[in-house]
């Protein structure tokens, strides 16, 4: 953990930041929406702010856009302080959750809106609007009005309207939230393609963990106004810093436990029910030993059946309680003699049918069980 932090610092010194938040604080009617956020978003990065509703992620985005002024702290874009800079003077453009297209204007006029305000020469305007609409494959519908478009098409127009201004940063507020699943997958792919081709910094707010994991270069996970972790999708998923993240992103088996003293690389944790689990503690616990922890084991890291490998520290006998068949994989619930119920995900490779009530063995390695602060 400390290693990754150091690596990040090294990388940060020679990368230019497009967006910097320094100790940003926001209070609404006496309630704190955002607490002391520090955030550095690199040039050209696809950065996501992920969190449940009400965690302050949209407020954070709105402070970057300039719709909200921070109560305390500072927002910088390309090193320039944005204090008292109104939204219309900021080099950012937003794709709104509701798209916020102008209903009284055609698709073409919606996209041309920003350029017309900047008194862009007519020939350049024609070319840029045309290019932007082509980019999002909406050039054939340029004369339509927003009310005549489907949700997905409106989304594309909203994207073109933001991109045509060539902003330093594109802000996306739950951009795919209103689309149905299939269309969302399609647009996700197009968003990544657009981001790669344009090389513009994207900052996206989402509550959809899958979307954040699949699209982003880095993710900041927010909870109750604070950033709990910043990292790559792999770091966030494989090495969550807190139980909240382990639970919010993906699924996990969480058990309160007490740590014994460290023996080599691993340590034994005892759950309240008396179950002993070998865990690989993170750097945090080596430096600052706390005994009360939450043990987190991802259901897909657990195997069904028996193993002879001496490297597997955790093996248990149990009874299969529930089987939920989901097509490409199956969820199992295994009850251990201690009374703990462990969820296990297995991909469906064989057609072997396991029935509830059967005795079963489960195992996982110590490095797959994380000890997280309570």
């Amino acid at each position, binding site marked *: 953990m400390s290693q990754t932090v150091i690596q990040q610092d090294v990388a940060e010194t020679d990368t230019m930041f497009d967006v910097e938040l320094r100790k940003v604080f926001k209070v609404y009617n006496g309630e704190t929406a955002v607490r002391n956020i520090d955030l550095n978003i690199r040039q050209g990065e696809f950065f996501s702010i992920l969190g449940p509703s009400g965690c302050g992620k949209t407020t954070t985005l709105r402070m970057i*856009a*300039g*719709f909200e002024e921070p109560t305390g702290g500072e927002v910088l874009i390309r090193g320039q302080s944005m204090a008292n800079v*109104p*939204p*219309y*003077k900021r080099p*950012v*453009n*937003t794709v*709104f959750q*509701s798209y*916020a*297209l*102008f*209903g*009284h204007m055609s698709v073409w006029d919606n996209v041309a*809106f*920003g350029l017309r*305000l*900047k008194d862009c020469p007519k020939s350049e305007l024609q070319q840029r609007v045309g290019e932007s609409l082509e980019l999002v494959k909406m050039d054939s519908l340029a004369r339509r009005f927003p009310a005549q478009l489907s949700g997905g098409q409106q989304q594309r127009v909203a994207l073109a*309207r933001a991109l045509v*201004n060539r902003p330093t940063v594109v802000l996306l507020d739950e951009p795919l939230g209103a689309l149905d699943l299939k269309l969302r997958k399609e647009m996700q792919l197009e968003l990544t393609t657009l981001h790669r081709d344009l090389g513009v910094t994207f900052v996206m707010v989402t509550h959809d963990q899958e979307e954040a994991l699949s699209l982003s270069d880095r993710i900041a996970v927010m909870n109750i106004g604070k950033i709990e972790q910043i990292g790559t999708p792999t770091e966030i998923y494989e090495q969550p810093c807190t139980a909240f993240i382990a639970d919010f992103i993906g699924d996990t088996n969480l058990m309160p436990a007490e740590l014994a003293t460290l023996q080599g690389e691993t340590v034994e944790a005892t759950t309240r029910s008396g179950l002993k689990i070998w865990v690989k503690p993170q750097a945090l616990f080596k430096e600052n030993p706390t005994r009360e922890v939450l043990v987190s084991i991802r259901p897909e890291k657990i195997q069904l059946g028996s193993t002879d490998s001496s490297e597997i520290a955790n093996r248990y006998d149990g009874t299969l309680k529930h089987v939920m068949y989901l097509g490409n994989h199956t969820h199992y619930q295994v009850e251990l003699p201690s009374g703990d119920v462990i969820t296990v995900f297995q991909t469906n490779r064989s057609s072997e049918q396991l029935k509830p009530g059967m005795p079963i063995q489960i195992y996982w390695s110590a490095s797959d069980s994380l000890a997280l602060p309570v």
Partner: protein
Amino acid sequence: MTLTSPNPNLAEPAIPGWQRTLRKLLQPVILLGPSGLWLLLLLVFPTLLILELSLIPGARLGNPPGPYGIGNYIEIFKPVYLQVIWRSLYFALGTTLFCLLLGFPVAYWIALKAPSRWRNLLLVGFILPLWTSSLLRAYAWITILRPSGLLNSLLGFFGLPGQEWLNRTPAVFIGMTYSYLPYMVLILYASLEKLDRRLLEAASDLGATQQQSFWRVTVPQTMPGIAAGGLLVLIATLGDFAVPELLGGASSMTVSRLIYNQFLGATRNWGLGSSISMILILGVSISIALLLKYGDRDAI
């Protein structure tokens, strides 16, 4: 047996088909009949009567004989009458414009800028004058505008010479604008209040200053409300009688006064009065049609 419905009344008795058909036929008659009869007696019938009067001078109403056929309509084109029609239009359009110019900033401020808990109170404050009779309000203006009235006293206080206000065009505009401004404010407010604030944010995000987003987003987005308010005030002012009569005097004769004169005044030409009425009804009907087509229906 235990499975029977707990309330036997719930079971609907079978109704013969013909009875159901009869019901279907009777339902609109029962529901719409009373109000339909009311409209027929007090709106459709009188209108038809006026149409008849304008075309065929009938002895049955005891009116003195006048020109026959469409002569009454040709008569309207005499400069004397055209001038009155033109003046009415001028008053109506002018008042509509003044109401719009004065009402929009007020409605805009109440809907978008005023603290939300004050909004209803401010609106009630604007509607309050509507609860007194329009005649009473016109008389109130007379006391303000007459030679020794409040306005001239105020001018005198600042050392300015008093003016003749009453029985002139400005007085009519002042009185009518005052009378219809609340309607305009209410309708514009309803339209502005619906305005999606996110559109203003989007405009600002795309580089529009407040002024630019006002002209490029707020005004076009509230156009249906502007149309509704404008047409409603236009319709009301076209037929207004009391205010121009009391504040404008004889030199400011409007269509309503002209019609009145034809029926009850010295001239007594019912045929001409009816033809002018028909023209007024036509003008108002066209305005209403426009209102229904282009106006913001929610705001009305």
